[in-house]
């Protein structure tokens, strides 16, 4: 056997797979791409915010560490514990609970009641102990340290949905790179990448005023109608292109080859099934085929007894219909 050079194009499937042409396929862009943009403060402000935050959370962090140590009954719960949530689930849950009035406005009472009952069953005991719900004013997300975009994309929407018309909007703060490890040191809790703080905490007022001055409100134009029904936001068509590859050349040949091979296979399978001479005859004429096939099977089942009678049944069903 003489070997062909690799570029000769022997027509093998491997060879065809190698040759792929780059093409651009049209894809409909999301008209609402703006919801994924974050208000990003400048690095100096971010550092300031980070310092404030680590300072504020220090006491709560000590409490967390002591609870983790096992002496949960003796540790006094700090007063700010109810004003802080750490982690994705607790933060999102609180924001969703806070979005209930908006939800009620949009969807009617039925859905909101359902959602509330769902929340209360899942809520942490600390949350259900609240006399009156605190208003979450500030959400800090270590966006640079979370690589999964799916986790952070929803926060602008969530922050806007949780904002109530009469009060100030929920501020969304992107923390600088490396914030996750610093928060971990302070809070002694894993996955401390998302933190939310409630309003009305006297110790945190300096931080709050800084945030109110420096950080712009979240902008999600297509959710703006929640608060202002006249705010219209229509985007013209945006078709983007996706860079992909398609196989090139000799497709037909490959198809033919594939078709033949499958036919052969089918043929073999049929031959394998047709054990008796009567059945092979049946395969040739389509009309009387099914009945005769059935007969043959009945005979064979009668010969071999109970064990094969089960097999004959499923074949018999389609012929009857």
């Amino acid at each position: 056997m003489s070997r062909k050079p690799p570029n000769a194009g022997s027509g093998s499937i491997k060879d065809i797979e190698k040759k792929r042409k780059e093409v651009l396929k049209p894809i409909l862009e999301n008209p609402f791409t703006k919801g994924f943009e974050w208000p990003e403060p400048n690095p100096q402000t971010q550092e300031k915010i980070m310092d404030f935050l680590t300072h504020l959370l220090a006491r709560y962090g000590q409490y967390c560490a002591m609870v983790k140590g096992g002496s949960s009954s003796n540790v006094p719960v700090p007063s700010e514990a109810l004003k802080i949530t750490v982690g994705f689930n607790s933060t999102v849950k609180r924001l969703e609970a806070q979005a209930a009035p908006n939800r009620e406005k949009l969807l009617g009472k039925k859905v909101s009641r359902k959602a509330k009952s769902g929340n209360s069953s899942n809520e942490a005991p600390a949350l259900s102990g609240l006399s009156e719900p605190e208003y979450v004013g500030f959400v800090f997300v270590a966006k640079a340290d979370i690589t999964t975009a799916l986790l952070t994309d929803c926060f602008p929407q969530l922050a806007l949905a949780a904002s109530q018309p009469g009060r100030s909007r929920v501020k969304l703060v992107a923390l600088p790179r490396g914030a996750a490890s610093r928060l971990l040191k302070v809070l002694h809790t894993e996955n401390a990448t998302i933190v939310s703080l409630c309003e009305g905490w006297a110790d945190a007022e300096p931080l709050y005023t800084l945030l109110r001055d420096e950080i712009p409100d979240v902008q999600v134009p297509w959710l703006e109608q929640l608060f202002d029904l006249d705010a219209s936001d229509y985007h013209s068509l945006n078709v983007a292109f996706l860079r992909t590859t398609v196989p090139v050349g000799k497709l037909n040949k490959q198809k033919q080859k594939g078709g033949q091979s499958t036919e052969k296979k089918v043929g073999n399978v049929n031959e394998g099934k047709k054990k008796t001479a009567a059945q092979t005859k049946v395969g040739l004429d389509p009309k009387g085929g099914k009945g005769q096939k059935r007969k043959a099977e009945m005979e064979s089942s009668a010969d071999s007894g109970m064990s094969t009678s089960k097999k004959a049944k499923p074949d018999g069903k389609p012929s009857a219909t």
Partner: protein
Amino acid sequence: MGPKKLPKVQKDHYARASFLFQAANFHLMHGNPELSRMMARGVDLVSKRAVLRLLPHLKRSICKKCKNVLVAGLTMTQSIENLLKNAPHADILVRTCMECNTAKRFPIGKDPEYQLHCDKNLVS
């Protein structure tokens, strides 16, 4: 080879799908969830009939079952679920539609660096 010329596209159906999606959002925001669902269903039907490709972000913002437009906090709830202890690779983001309670699960812990194909190779 220089920069590739963008191919021409028949825009009618894309325009229709885009409009319907925005209309679905509009009606949701104006308190007509049923009308909104109807419009979102239109997006789905048009894209199937005319074989359009929709951006996954867009497609994921419509509930698979009841065609509700999913907005975090308003029409869907989210949580991270982990059925194993001390196994960050088993983190799963569960997004549940509030209307029909259909949950879509994203195994985010499996590959934290994972990026959608459309996020990597989009030319616009």
